[in-house]
């Protein structure tokens, strides 16, 4: 029989005992809905975590440090990493080289230092770090009041919320409601801070000893001399951000942010410089670490490998998200299994319905065979009926699952709002899940139809015709 005829006859037969078939189809749709609900919860949670991780700005970033620093990232690196003695110095030349690697968007030094900021003539000691211009597009600054730095070298500053509280003397008691960022921003935006810092001053044109170049500078003690001068810099407050200072993003551990170019031009003495002094490697600044932003999170691994080949130690969130993905895979499997249980029950319903249909339509099967239907025709017809129930149930189930998800999303967001937390979407029904669920429902239905269809096809026409 041709497919359109088959579909037509199957649908006609389904309509004939509409109640029973609808109930079976509802059973399938409930099964599919539970599968969709479970898997979309899994997908939603995973997306939520990914979003949170992306907000931390780490997904596309590789942190590079030198083995010369005593900052091994773990035992693995300790064993496999390059020998500290052979490791390269993480200086400007290395940064430029890294920046030129394929797929690298930018590589900038992590400048971080503790300094004193004066506001209203009161000193506040805090951690300050520099941000490149590209940080502007980072999700992390979504909730910021005010604006980002007007230029990369502007004498401007962005404050972290808790530091703003400190400046205003509004640090809330533990457990008390936190003041909103907007509230904190109003009195502070546009005001000026004075930053005191230690400047590292290279004595101008120090004649380098003849016959020595940079690579063999280990014994060039004379070249490593520089002086430290105390300076002040006025800074305008342009933004208050509600970044979590304890979040995973390295630079955000600081509470005050400066534009990168400004910070570089100030030649601020950093804690790592002190360590470098004792080794007196060079009079050029050495970076304790460099952040490398990769064009696409998918390319992080490749860039990381290339940097490792250069002899540096790297760290990226990919490593961390790897194990997270493992966890999600397991979670997914569990959710999938629980979701499928209802569908398995529904598939028994299909078998039952079709076996009943065979008994009921025994004579009809006999008639069809007598007038020339082959075993294949009869089998295909029952198969088509099972498939149609699966398809209808699958579509209805996806809709139902989606609706359940919407309701739960709505409910939890009301709850989140009451807890004054931002709304979240932890329920996602991606297109692949829609396709997969419907396909899976059809597949399960066809499998369930296998036995009844085979039984119907094998029916002896003479006996079937005798049946009243």
């Amino acid at each position, binding site marked *: *029989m041709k497919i359109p005829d088959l579909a037509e006859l199957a649908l006609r037969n389904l309509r004939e005992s509409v109640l029973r078939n609808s109930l079976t189809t509802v059973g399938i749709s409930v099964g599919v809905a539970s599968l969709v609900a479970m898997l979309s919860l899994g997908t939603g949670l995973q997306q939520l975590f990914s979003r949170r991780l992306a907000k931390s700005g780490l997904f596309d970033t590789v942190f590079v440090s030198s083995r010369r620093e005593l900052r091994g990232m773990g035992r693995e690196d300790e064993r496999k990493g390059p020998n500290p003695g052979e490791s390269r110095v993480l200086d400007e030349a290395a940064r430029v080289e890294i920046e030129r690697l394929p797929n690298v968007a930018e590589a900038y030094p992590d400048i971080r230092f503790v300094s004193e900021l004066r506001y209203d003539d009161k000193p506040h000691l805090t951690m300050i770090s520099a941000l490149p211009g590209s940080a502007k597009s980072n999700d992390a600054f979504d909730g910021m009041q005010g604006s980002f730095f007007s230029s990369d070298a502007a004498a401007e500053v962005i404050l972290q919320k808790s530091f703003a509280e400190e400046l205003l003397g509004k640090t809330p008691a533990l457990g008390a409601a936190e003041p909103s960022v907007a509230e904190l921003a109003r009195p502070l935006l546009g005001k000026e801070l004075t930053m005191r810092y230690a400047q590292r001053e290279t004595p101008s044109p120090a004649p380098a000893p003849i016959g020595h170049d940079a690579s063999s500078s280990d014994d060039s003690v004379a070249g490593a001399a520089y002086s430290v001068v105390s300076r002040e810099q006025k800074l305008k407050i342009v933004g208050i951000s509600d970044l979590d200072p304890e979040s995973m993003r390295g630079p955000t551990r600081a509470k005050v942010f400066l534009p990168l170019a400004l910070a570089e031009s100030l030649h601020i003495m950093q804690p790592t410089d002190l360590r470098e002094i004792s080794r007196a490697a060079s009079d050029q600044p050495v970076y304790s670490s460099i952040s490398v932003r990769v064009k696409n999170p998918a390319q992080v691994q490749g860039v990381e490998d290339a940097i490792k080949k250069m002899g540096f130690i790297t760290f990226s969130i990919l490593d961390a998200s790897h194990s997270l993905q493992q966890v999600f895979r397991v979670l997914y499997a569990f959710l999938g299994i629980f979701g499928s249980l209802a569908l398995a029950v529904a598939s028994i319903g299909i078998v039952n319905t079709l076996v009943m249909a065979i008994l009921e339509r025994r004579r009809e099967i006999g008639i*069809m065979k007598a007038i020339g239907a*082959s075993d294949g025709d009869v089998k295909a017809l029952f198969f088509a009926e099972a498939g149609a129930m699966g398809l209808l149930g699958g579509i209805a189930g996806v809709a139902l699952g989606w609706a359940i998800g919407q309701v739960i999303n709505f409910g939890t967001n009301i709850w989140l709002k009451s807890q004054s937390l931002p709304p979240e979407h932890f329920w996602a029904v991606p297109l692949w899940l829609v396709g997969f669920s419907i396909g899976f429902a059809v597949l399960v239905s066809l499998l369930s139809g296998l036995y009844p269809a085979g039984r119907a096809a094998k029916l002896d026409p003479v006996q079937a015709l005798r049946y009243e």
Partner: protein
Amino acid sequence: MTPASVAASVTLTAIRSENLCRHYRMGETLIRAVDGVSLEVRSGEFVALLGSSGSGKSSMLNLVAGLDRPTSGSVIVQDRDLAKLSREELAKYRLHVVGMVFQSFNLIPSMTLAENVELPLRFAEVDRSQRDKLSREALERVGLRARMKHRPSELSGGEQQRAALARALINRPKVLLADEPTGNLDSHTGTEIMDMIRDLNQQLGMTVVMVTHERALAERYAQRLIFLADGKLVDDRPNGPTSFRDAQGGQP
């Protein structure tokens, strides 16, 4: 056999059975529904299979129809040895070579007359446009054009049997097999159906095998009477030309 002689045998012999047996077990006892029947039906012949109930005449018809398989012996219809056909080939045979009408009409109750009549065309994978035309023509021929959208339950027995006849003929079979076609009809509509079958036999040269227990009916329409009892052939004789002519003359 040369191709010419094959063609000749097709035209001469429609059905031939040799020592045909159909036995089956019912509990402890072996039932010999058909027990060594050998017969030959020529092309274009109108044969009545007569016998009391349980004589094996319906079992015999089922074997010829390809609905059942012989336990032993052979049955050859239109040069096809039915015992040697696969299930698939047997279905094709039922679809194209033979048409069947039953005592209880056997229309599918959930389908309209038009749908019932075109069902074999669906199995034969005939195009939809062609199907509509053929089923309309077939219903027109049996005078049911106006009723084509009705379901069988809305029709009288005679109308249902006419629709069943239209369905049996839709794939232009060579052989028509009728199992007590008038058994559920009153004598008037029975005659109507029988006249139609006789017209098919005489005008289109269709071979007709009819199972009946009404001897008068058989004598009135058939050219040859075959009597079965206990699964065995007990008598096989031509219907007297006189009585055949009488049957014709009996019509007003």
